[in-house]
């Protein structure tokens, strides 16, 4: 795809930030899908890592073209989401959160110790196949799909089960199926984001998908809110741009993120964009 010269210049200069905004937007949406059904997952970074590693291997070892690799990158994360979701989503409460933290740590240990995955050095030399338009096309499609699903019986069921799962079941909502569906959808979004990231940055390593990035992804949704799909994306953009603006304080990035989570929980329980989605199409 060719851009006009001024845009080309701009994209070249800020390419990394522009990619990060789109990819983090997708990650924020993957968090949103889980929170929207009243569950808490700390495995979004793990799902992203599964997408990144599986897609990098497909490119590096199998030499598959990117238009095959990108859609296929969601398969492994989706399978892991099913394996974790089926036993934990029957239970209410924090079981999913705990299981997904465990998943992240187990995977990190596997990445570190398997030679085929590059060990502590990670995988490098990944060809740059990600184009900016791919990231933003997928982001727009994801927002549109989630927006439309939100304005339907599924959106109403999701909000109902977030408020009161038992009452929602009595209304005929198959709560467990929706929770599982949401977790798989979130793993797909995170996996695709991971593949896009891997093919934008040349290198992936085990520490990019651990507990800290998981908390950062959660803070996108906490800051932005989960009233509409736009809210978590806004949160992601603010938290992605902030370190760029405050470059001098880059050592304090973790402190800023922590502070924002605390302030958001205390003063903005519904996030920055507290608007609520109308649950009807008409």
């Amino acid at each position, binding site marked *: 795809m060719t851009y006009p010269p001024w845009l080309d210049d701009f994209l070249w200069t800020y390419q990394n930030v522009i990619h990060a905004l789109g990819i983090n937007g997708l990650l924020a949406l993957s968090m949103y899908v889980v929170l929207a059904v009243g569950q808490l997952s700390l495995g979004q970074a793990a799902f992203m890592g599964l997408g990144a590693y599986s897609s990098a291997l497909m490119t590096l070892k199998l030499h598959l073209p990117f238009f095959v690799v990108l859609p296929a990158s969601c398969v492994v994360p989706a399978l892991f989401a099913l394996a974790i979701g089926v036993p934990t989503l029957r239970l209410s409460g924090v079981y999913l959160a705990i299981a997904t933290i465990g998943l992240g740590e187990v995977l990190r240990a596997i990445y570190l110790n398997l030679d085929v995955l590059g060990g502590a050095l990670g995988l490098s030399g990944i060809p740059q196949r990600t184009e900016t338009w791919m990231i933003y096309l997928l982001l727009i499609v994801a927002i549109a799909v989630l927006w439309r699903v939100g304005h*339907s019986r*599924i959106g109403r069921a999701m909000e109902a089960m977030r408020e009161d799962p038992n009452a929602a079941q009595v*209304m005929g909502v198959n709560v467990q199926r929706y929770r599982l569906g949401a977790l798989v959808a979130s793993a797909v979004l995170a996996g695709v984001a991971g593949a896009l990231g891997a093919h934008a940055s040349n290198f992936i390593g085990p520490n990019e998908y651990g507990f800290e990035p998981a908390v950062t992804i959660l803070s996108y949704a906490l800051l932005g809110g989960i009233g509409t799909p736009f809210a978590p994306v806004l949160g992601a953009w603010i938290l992605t741009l902030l370190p760029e603006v405050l470059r001098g304080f880059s050592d304090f990035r973790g402190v800023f993120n922590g502070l924002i989570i605390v302030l958001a929980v205390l003063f903005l329980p519904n996030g920055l964009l507290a608007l609520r989605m109308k649950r009807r199409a008409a």
Partner: protein
Amino acid sequence: MTLLSTAGLTRKFAGLVAVDGVDMAVEVGSVHAVIGPNGAGKTTLFNLISGLVEPTSGSIDFNGNDISRLPVHARAGLGMARSFQNIRIFSAMTVLENVLTGLHSTITAGVGAIVLRLPGFHRAEKTAVERARMALELVGLSSKSELLAGALPYGDQRRLEIARAMAAHPRLLLLDEPAAGMNPAETSSLAALVRRIRDAGTTVLLVEHDMGFVMDISDAVTVLNFGRRIFHGPPGAIRQEPAVIEAYLGKKMAARLAARKDGQKAIAP
């Protein structure tokens, strides 16, 4: 014809037998009340019927299907709906959206139709909104359909719960203490509403403490005490039943009443 029946239905909670071998039959087209002192197992019985609690033993038959182990959401699909003792509306959603949620299993549009906004999706939503408005009309909440449910006054929230349960025209409506916290005027309009629901073809099974209300609208009454069924029959016969009087008033008072009826002087034991 029997719509709902239980056979030897039992639920134990860590040593406490909350529901103990209850046999019950609810006739199609009737208003059936379950009464009993506090802790008699009435709400547990409701939770067993709607599936929120699994039976320890015994069975539940609904419209010819054994539903004892059926998941909660599937029972809604068979035509069962309920309200809760402590109101459980979705308070952050609007009144209309609450009722639309009650129509969940009747709306057939799949994910593909929803995402692509196929004609089937619009048709299904339109039908659902029409049905939801009818249910709101039934309980007299039409003018408040766009308000947030949590902002409604208490009496309206109770009626919203009934509208949400009634939206899908269930075969059986379970009402758990619908008159709780209502004044006499609200209670009598609730009685009229329950009659309208029955006349429209929905069988009503209710738990209630307000005896005037129960005697007024019930076609049949089941009395529970300590999880056991101690009476089953028409409301008029309850007053004559020694076991019921004993459960409510205690052995001593029951004996005095019995003695007085026999024209003798009460003898203190």
